[in-house]
């Protein structure tokens, strides 16, 4: 500790170099934390609902199952609740493809019980359940279109079987909240409306695209899936049941490899920080050969000299990382404003770098600083006094 002023003085000696290095670390840590937060949301979204299964038509999601299946699925041992949910693919204006958002027709009562991550107060829930044309929307979707409770919304489906002579009209009953800590990655940009209204409007012939099945024991998922599919084995519409995690992964972008891609980028970012810091540290040690020689001559043990260089790297890393986090705190709010990236991020809203990732960011900054200081530190440790002094 008592050497701290010594180290800090060294860092200030070439303040321009220290600043640029810290800045380089800062932007990289910012990028790293942003990417990791996004990855965490994404995996959180994928891993949600371990106690939930999704049953769909055996052929694919493009086919639908009879409504009568619901009662049969509910009768399978271990099944707690079942809710029909159809992706509606509705748009306010079909000629504006960039205005898309996700909307589902759901059996509200059971669906909201199965998905506690869509948070409504008791009164809001009642208001939604009472109004057949009611719908609930996520907070960021409401903000995007400037919607308030009571506003009406008209949607036309892009799915041809769901197309009606005039658009379906809805009234916003409530704006649901999400809890990104308890349920990370919950989509905050959905519009959910009553399956019953949708079914009647489309002439009661569209059927059900997915049944969301809540089970009491996640360990029974395999057995229950088989039991459900067994029920319909000999019928016209056979089913395929899988865990919600598998279901979501199968719909994923880039065949589920987006996480891999982002992690790859994060790794490259880390390597870039290492290069920049290593460069700085080796320059710092090189220009101080004489000084290190003097320290050693005065009797400071080589070990201490080495740890001084190492901690200089570590402190540099920490300064950079903390700057990056502070920077990120403000910049991450601006991200949704960036076109395209923003659209994707908006469905993983309220992105805040969680404490775990922030800690990891600082840890990585310090660690990379230490690693960057390692070679110069070892060189300083090994170097003989005479050589050090002569080189100078």
């Amino acid at each position, binding site marked *: 500790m008592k050497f701290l002023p010594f180290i800090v003085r060294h860092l200030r000696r070439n303040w*321009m*170099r220290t600043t*640029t*290095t810290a*800045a*380089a*670390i800062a*932007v*990289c840590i*910012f*990028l790293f934390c942003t*990417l990791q937060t996004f990855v965490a949301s994404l995996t959180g979204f994928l891993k949600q609902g371990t106690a939930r299964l999704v049953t769909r038509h*055996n*052929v*694919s*999601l*493009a*086919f639908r199952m009879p409504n009568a299946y619901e009662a049969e699925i509910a009768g399978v041992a271990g099944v707690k609740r079942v809710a029909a949910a159809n992706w509606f*693919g509705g748009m306010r204006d*079909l*000629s504006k*493809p960039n205005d898309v958002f996700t909307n589902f027709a759901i059996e509200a009562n059971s669906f909201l019980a199965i998905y506690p991550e869509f948070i409504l107060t008791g009164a809001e829930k009642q208001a939604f359940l009472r109004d057949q044309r009611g719908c609930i929307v996520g907070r960021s979707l409401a903000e995007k279109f400037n919607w308030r409770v009571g506003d009406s919304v008209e949607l*036309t489906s*892009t*799915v*041809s*079987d769901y197309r009606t002579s005039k658009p379906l009209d809805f009234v916003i009953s409530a704006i649901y909240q999400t809890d990104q800590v308890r349920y990370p990655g919950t989509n905050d940009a959905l519009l959910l409306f009553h399956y019953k209204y949708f079914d009647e409007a489309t002439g009661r012939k569209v059927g059900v695209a997915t049944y969301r099945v809540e089970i009491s024991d996640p360990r029974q998922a395999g057995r229950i899936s088989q039991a459900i599919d067994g029920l319909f084995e000999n019928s*016209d519409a056979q089913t*395929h049941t*899988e865990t919600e995690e*598998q279901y979501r*992964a*199968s*719909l*994923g*972008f*880039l*065949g589920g*490899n987006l996480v891999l891609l982002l992690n790859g*980028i994060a790794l*490259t*970012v880390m*390597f*870039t*920080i290492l*290069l*920049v810091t*290593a*460069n*700085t540290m*080796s*320059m710092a040690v090189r220009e101080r050969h004489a000084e290190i020689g003097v320290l050693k001559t005065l009797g400071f043990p080589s070990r201490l000299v080495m740890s001084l260089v190492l901690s200089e790297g570590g402190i540099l890393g920490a300064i950079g990382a903390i700057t990056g986090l502070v920077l990120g705190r403000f910049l991450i709010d601006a991200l949704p404003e*960036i*076109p*395209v*990236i923003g659209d*994707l991020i908006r469905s993983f809203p309220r992105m805040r770098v969680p404490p775990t990732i922030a800690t990891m960011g600082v840890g990585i900054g310090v660690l990379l600083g230490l690693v960057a200081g390692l070679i110069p530190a070892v060189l300083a440790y090994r170097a003989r006094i005479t050589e050090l002094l002569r080189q100078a």
Partner: protein
Amino acid sequence: MLPLSYSVKSIAVRWKAASLAIVGISLVVAVLLFLLAMASGFRLALRATGSNRNAIVLQEGAASELASTFSKAAGDRVAVDPRIARGADGKSLVSPESVTVVALPRRSDGELSNVTVRGVTPAAFKVRNGIRVIAGRELQPGLYEVVVGRGVQTRIRGLEVGQRLRMMKREFLVVGVMDAGGSAFESELWGDFDDLGSAFNRAGAENSLTLRLADPGSTGALDQEFKEDPQLQLQVKPERQFYEEQAGPLTRFLRALAIFVSVVMGIGAVFGAMNTMNAIVAARSREIGTLRALGFSRPIVLSAFVLEGLILALAGGIIGGLLALLINGLQATTTANMGEIAFAFRVTPTDLAYGIVFAATMGVVGSLLPALRAARQPIVVALRDT
């Protein structure tokens, strides 16, 4: 003007620091090109799927084939339009098609993957020239057969020629493998229109019509007429434009990600380059003083150092480009309109040029401040400094 070799030699003297800066810049360029190659590969695969000479007819307002349905009667009315080109046999070149998605097990892990199944008539192969059956034989209508795309065959289990595939109520025999020049059709299964229609209980419904126009310029007029005809309510688009639009969302996302990541990483690399250049300038303070004393003006000294930064960055850019070329042709898949589409990474010359320009920008920006510092130093101070 100082000779170029001056800048090159001075980098060589400080090769350690210089190489760290070069590697840093090359990584940024490699990441940028990697993401751009993914976007370009996907776009090119879909672009190759459409031909400029063809037009696609969909239900008005439908953004994809899956979302479009119209009756056979409407399709037949379109087919008699005199503006449609005719084949050697005198029949008009119109291909009515049905599209659906079937979940089939992947070869790698047995997990289900969505495969597009297209119902076609023999006209489909006439309207699209680039499709060849490279193994097995062509499709026979009425026999419940399918030909499989080359790409989907390597990804999905049980699609060898001679194997049987159950789809809804019927078993289909795989009779051939088709090559479609790397386009999205290689990710599809093609079966007879009527066979698939009866297997999937969708007899008669068409999802799209692809037609060859005698004059591709008439697309706009047809679109107008078909939209206004209350019995049709169909839209017409050039086929190539339609497929390029399908690539839009993913391509835009990847490009935006590429720009965001590379700009932020680039700022980091610029700071790194700045360090290196600063060290170079500091170490040569005396030399700079000498140059100035010899009569080289400030702008010349400045440009010599900026040039040095530029050379560093260009070296980084070229290495990054070479790194990116390693992934050229790498296969990846993504979901588009529910079906999985395979595509190859494509490092295009334009993207490479972007990478090099980006590297050069990093070099110039990174070396500007240190170069200014070098040029501004008063001669006396510079010479005194050791």
